[in-house]
């Protein structure tokens, strides 16, 4: 698939819903700051908030931000038969029971094609995975997977292994940045994602936790090109992976 040529300073924020919560509040603050710096921001929500649930829609509307929702434009319910799996999201169907991850991913892909962002900024799970794969497949220049809430990997939730697999695939793309708002949680995520000792093929073995906003460390000279890959809460060394470890389907 040819890489998407994004418009400069265009950011597409993807979130699960716009219901009032800590993650959405962070997203609102970030959007406000980015608009002041001359960025163009669009919001894409995977689902509408439940009826009666308070949302941040009015605040985003007041900022003049373009908002759209996957469930507002098409049927996103989990189908009996698998829809065309454009972005390899089929294996992550169990992440959400009542919506089709594949259809949501396709809707995110449409939003990316329509808005043509230079950056796709995904906020918390499952938006990180559902938007991460289309962004990766479409060759978006940079996409941030920002974990604001505690990850299911840390909570030991049943979908733990699916999220772990998803991040393993996504982190191999050199354009991905995985951010964790808390240093403690970033470390915990790193430790839990590493798996048992001696599991050498796991690229997260080469990931070290960094809190969002902490000073970037000096480039690690042990890995050629590692300085380009250092970013965010996690330090990826995708460039250091052996060629056979690099996936072909993703990135």
């Amino acid at each position, binding site marked *: 698939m040819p890489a998407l040529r994004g418009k400069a300073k265009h*950011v597409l924020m993807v979130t699960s819903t716009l219901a*009032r*919560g*800590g993650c959405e*509040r*962070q997203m609102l*603050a*970030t959007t*406000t*700051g*980015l608009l*002041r*710096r001359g960025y163009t921001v669009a919001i894409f929500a995977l689902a509408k908030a439940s009826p009666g*649930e*308070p949302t941040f829609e009015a605040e985003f509307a007041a900022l003049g931000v373009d908002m759209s929702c996957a469930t507002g434009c098409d049927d996103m319910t989990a189908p009996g038969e698998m829809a065309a799996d454009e972005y390899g999201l089929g294996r992550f169907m169990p992440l959400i029971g009542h919506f089709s991850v594949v259809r949501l991913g396709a809707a995110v892909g449409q939003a990316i094609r329509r808005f043509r962002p*230079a*950056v796709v*900024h995904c906020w918390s799970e499952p938006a990180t995975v559902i938007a991460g794969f289309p962004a990766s497949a479409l060759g978006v*220049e*940079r996409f*941030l997977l920002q*974990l*604001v*809430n*505690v990850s299911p990997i*840390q*909570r030991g939730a049943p979908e733990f292994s699916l999220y772990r697999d998803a991040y393993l695939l996504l982190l191999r793309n050199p354009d991905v*940045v995985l*951010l*964790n*708002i*808390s*240093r*403690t*949680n970033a470390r*915990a995520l790193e430790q839990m994602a590493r798996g048992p000792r001696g599991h050498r093929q796991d690229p997260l073995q080469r990931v070290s936790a960094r*809190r*969002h*906003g902490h000073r970037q460390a000096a480039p690690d000279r042990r890995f050629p090109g590692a300085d*380009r*890959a*250092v*970013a*965010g809460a996690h330090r990826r060394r995708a460039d250091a992976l052996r060629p056979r470890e690099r996936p072909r389907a993703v990135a």
Partner: protein
Amino acid sequence: MRFAPEKDPELWLETAAIIAAARPDVRFVLAGYGELAEPILRTTRALGLSERVALLGPRTDVGAIYAVMDVFLMTSRFEGTPNVLIEAQAAGVPVVAPLVGGVGEAMRDGVTGRLVTERAADKLAEAVVGVLDDPRWRKRAARQGPKFVASQFKLRRKIDRTIGFYNYGRAAPASEFAALTGRLRAYFQSPAAFWVKWLCRRRLPAPSDQPVLIPRQVNLR
């Protein structure tokens, strides 16, 4: 508070019951919404706190709510970096929270609040009562909270870093270098730099064998 299992409102109410028994003058405020709203109402009645707990429902005027608080209590099972804790401190309200997730990064233990290592009702209640019983410490914490938040959670800095991540490995280093050289050029062409150099020349002793320390301006701000 989002009334969800990870926020553990049951523990919040249990803690409130212990505090209520120790301090008959204390009233409680719980604002929020969520799936556990009904169970919260039932537990409040069961604990005999109906007269002392105000359940406000979902609210957006959080500033007004923080204004009536003497202490903010959090009982979450998991947390990232909790916004409510930051907001409470910014509003000058001392906080009490268990040491879970990134809570320890969002407050300064003993300065802006009390961090409770054991997430249990009696320990949390003990910390809250300790804060309520010490008005001088509370006043100090109320002063320190906004300072701590201003130093750690500035929006400008957050946006700078987010944009840094957007541009990492691309145009950012070049433009940062250009910005730095621009600032240096502006400084050396400024009248202030001229007078600093003039003063330095006047005060320096005549050349001799003594080593001369040439002052260098390093502060670019």
